[in-house]
């Protein structure tokens, strides 16, 4: 018990300690200031502009900035799609994997470009190494960089006075990649390999099993079979079984995993190299690699709150936004921790199963790894659904009803409790605009935020950004529930089955990518419908954010007076949390009542 609480404190404490200095560093990078790495990287940055003939002084209007984001993303979708449907004919495929089907390839391409990393495939069985590193790893980097870039366009909207330009997307992208993401991930990847994450280009290994097992010709295990090690003959209760096949070897996947795992964590992408993501012992082998991977999930999103404060020259504003996110996160960790440690009556079996914490983690260990236990699994689950990361180190489908409910709710709140790198914060700023508007209405003042007047144009876009996620999730899961093949393919029945479906659409709608994996996601209907949802929920908010940024940049700055509503005090933090919870709760309560809540109340009979 004591250790579990210590672990929770350590994880959260280190996060804050690292986020503050990183936040300051990111601000300096984006303003083009000279930093510790500039000595080596400034020539690289200048070299890139020279080779590509990019004018780094060029300023883009909000529409140009948006066009750059969209065209660049479209190229990403196209490339990742082509790599997959042609991978059998390309190099870097030592497993000789076949081409991916078009609908799955499209889904995967959209999923990685939109920073969702929803995975309808199993990495080690479906994708070649070339597809993984030249397609997916690249998108992990650039989709994260795109999020940060759009955030900075918005920040410049607040800073600039009566101007058109929001910065230059190519310069922003280059700086984020070479000063922030590459150095961070090179260090991270080496630590991960040192801890046991694989990083090679060989074909998969096969190793002998200590105990060979006998299976029927259809692949089912023959329980209780005796295998003669000399002759390979299989007998069951003294009778020979001629059709039995003896499996003597095990499959050990290989490949360049560590390099991809590092960025999928730190870029809030979340798409695992392996099918079971960071629960796989070759992707996350020890509690130490787990610490690094888990902190990376929230490191940049948390740092960006402080970056925001430094950049708008109002440190308190950054802290206020951070506080609102942090309070929500801690509540989520708390509820999940208690619920998972308590387990379920189905697991306890009237005392036949020992779930105490003596010499073991105890609690609900179904779907959790021994080395992580409850504490390291729960913190990860809370972090990954708060940030729109979506990687998992334990299987969320096997969480208790209440634990699974919290995971789902965090995504449905619009991925603004830290959220994805960049996009979480610009999403939260839309909620902040909504909050000052509502607060302004209550006391009868013109709403303003950071010295800029909030008018109908900004409000319209802010409302659309806030409602984009709930809208696509509810429409998507509603339609899916009516398609006959979808309910038939669920892994569990009843309320849990509906939760699996709702979770799927919440995950893609929040650009998260985690799954209640009992849901069979690889069908053309699911692949295409989820792709469309990912596109809308990624690019509608980007368009809205840039529109707001463009409009704000053109406005004059209003002086702060005694009558200005403070957006840095605890009252604002409280109001902001309420607005986020209210929109989420009102949108999703009916759907949640049919899924996780029904299941929860079913267990306390």
């Amino acid at each position, binding site marked *: 018990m004591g250790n579990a609480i210590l672990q929770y404190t*350590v994880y959260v404490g280190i996060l804050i300690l690292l986020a503050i200095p990183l936040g300051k560093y990111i601000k300096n990078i984006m303003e083009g200031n000279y930093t510790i790495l500039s000595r080596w990287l400034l020539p690289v940055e200048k070299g890139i502009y020279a080779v*590509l*003939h*990019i004018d780094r002084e060029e300023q883009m209007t909000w529409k*140009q900035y948006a066009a750059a984001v969209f*065209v*660049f993303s479209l190229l990403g979708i196209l490339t990742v799609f082509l790599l997959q449907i042609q991978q059998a004919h390309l190099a870097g495929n030592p497993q000789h994997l076949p081409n991916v089907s078009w609908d799955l390839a499209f889904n995967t391409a959209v999923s990685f470009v939109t920073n969702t990393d929803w995975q309808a495939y199993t990495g080690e069985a479906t994708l070649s190494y070339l597809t993984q590193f030249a*397609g997916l790893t*690249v998108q992990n*980097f650039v989709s994260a960089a795109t999020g940060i870039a759009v955030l900075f366009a918005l920040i410049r909207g607040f800073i600039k006075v009566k101007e058109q330009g929001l910065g230059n997307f190519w310069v922003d*992208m280059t700086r984020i*990649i070479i000063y922030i993401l590459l150095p961070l*991930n*090179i260090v991270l*990847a*080496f630590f991960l*390999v040192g801890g*046991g*994450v*694989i*990083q*090679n280009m060989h074909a998969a*290994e096969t190793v*002998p*099993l*200590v*105990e060979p097992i006998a*299976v029927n010709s259809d*692949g089912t295990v023959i329980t209780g079979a005796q295998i003669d090690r000399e002759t390979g003959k299989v007998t069951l209760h003294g009778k020979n079984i001629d059709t039995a096949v003896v*499996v003597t070897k095990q*499959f050990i996947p*290989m490949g360049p995993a560590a*390099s991809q795992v590092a960025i999928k964590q730190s870029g809030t992408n979340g798409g695992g190299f392996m099918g079971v993501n960071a*629960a796989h*012992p070759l992707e996350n082998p*020890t*509690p130490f690699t*787990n610490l690094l991977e888990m902190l990376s999930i929230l490191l940049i999103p948390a740092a960006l709150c402080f970056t925001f404060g430094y950049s708008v020259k109002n440190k308190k504003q950054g802290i206020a936004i951070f506080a609102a996110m942090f309070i929500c996160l801690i509540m989520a960790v708390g509820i999940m921790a208690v619920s998972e440690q308590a*387990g*379920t009556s*189905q*697991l306890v079996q009237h005392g*036949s199963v*020992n779930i105490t914490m003596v*010499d*073991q983690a105890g609690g609900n260990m179904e*779907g*959790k*790894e*021994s*080395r*992580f236990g409850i504490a390291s699994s729960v913190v990860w689950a809370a972090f990954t659904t708060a940030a729109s990361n979506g990687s998992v*180190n*334990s*299987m969320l*489908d*096997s969480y208790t009803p209440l634990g699974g409910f919290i995971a789902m709710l965090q995504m449905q709140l619009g991925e603004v409790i830290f959220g994805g790198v960049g996009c979480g914060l610009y999403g939260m700023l839309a909620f902040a605009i909504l909050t000052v508007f509502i607060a302004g209405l209550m006391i009868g003042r013109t709403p303003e935020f950071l010295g800029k007047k909030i008018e109908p144009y900004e409000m319209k876009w802010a409302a659309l950004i806030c409602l984009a996620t709930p809208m696509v999730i509810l429409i998507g899961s509603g339609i899916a529930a009516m398609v006959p093949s979808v309910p038939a393919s669920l892994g569990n029945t009843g309320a849990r089955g509906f939760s699996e479906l709702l979770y799927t659409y919440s995950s893609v709608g929040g650009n998260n990518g985690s799954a209640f*994996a*009992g849901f069979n996601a690889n069908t053309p209907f699911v692949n295409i419908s989820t792709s469309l949802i990912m596109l809308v929920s990624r690019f509608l908010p980007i368009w809205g954010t840039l529109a707001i940024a463009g409009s704000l940049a053109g406005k004059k700055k209003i002086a702060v007076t005694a009558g200005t509503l403070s957006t840095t005090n605890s009252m604002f933090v409280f109001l902001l949390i309420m607005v986020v919870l209210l929109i989420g709760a009102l949108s999703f309560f009916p759907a949640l009542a049919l899924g996780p809540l029904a299941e929860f109340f079913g*267990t306390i009979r």
Partner: protein
Amino acid sequence: MNIVKQVLPNAVKMFFMMTLLCGILYTGFITAGAQLLFPYQANGSLIQMNERTYGSALIGQPYTDNGHMWGRIMQLDISTYKDVDGSPLLYAGPSNLSPAGTEFKKIVAQRVEKLRAADPDKKGTPVPVDLVTDSGSGLDPDISPAAAAYQVSRIAKARGISEIRVKNIIEKCTTGRTFGVLGEPTVNVLKVNLMLDGILS
């Protein structure tokens, strides 16, 4: 449309530059460095003795022999992966079952029954939870010290060796919490079994 034409050339150039930097150079640099600095870890932590490979220290295997230590429950997958000669290879995955479902209740009851049948002396002792649950990967190489201790008498009896010897082996294969704080203490099941079989020492 004009605006798209304006940004397209830079987008294409930037895309190639990023693929080169983040896909090829980054991955190549990490791979080369990893092979140089950490060859054992980078290649799957394979346990090799006298030019023979005995599995990966990080990947669990299924056991049913009373003289071997048993690990987490595995949902075996025999159909997805094949050896070069076409023979089936073993892999495993998670159950994705709800721990609050009736199906789960039935399955756990069966698992408890199986453990008790293998070791009738333990009838009154509650079974440690990790022996009756599937892991997140289905390939968990470890169990908790409680789950290892539960099996000591069964292993000792089946092999006709003293419990102290089994306990000593378990102790050698136990890893504590990282820095005394992080994660959980674990016992590596493959290493225990290789030591019991006299392959590792």
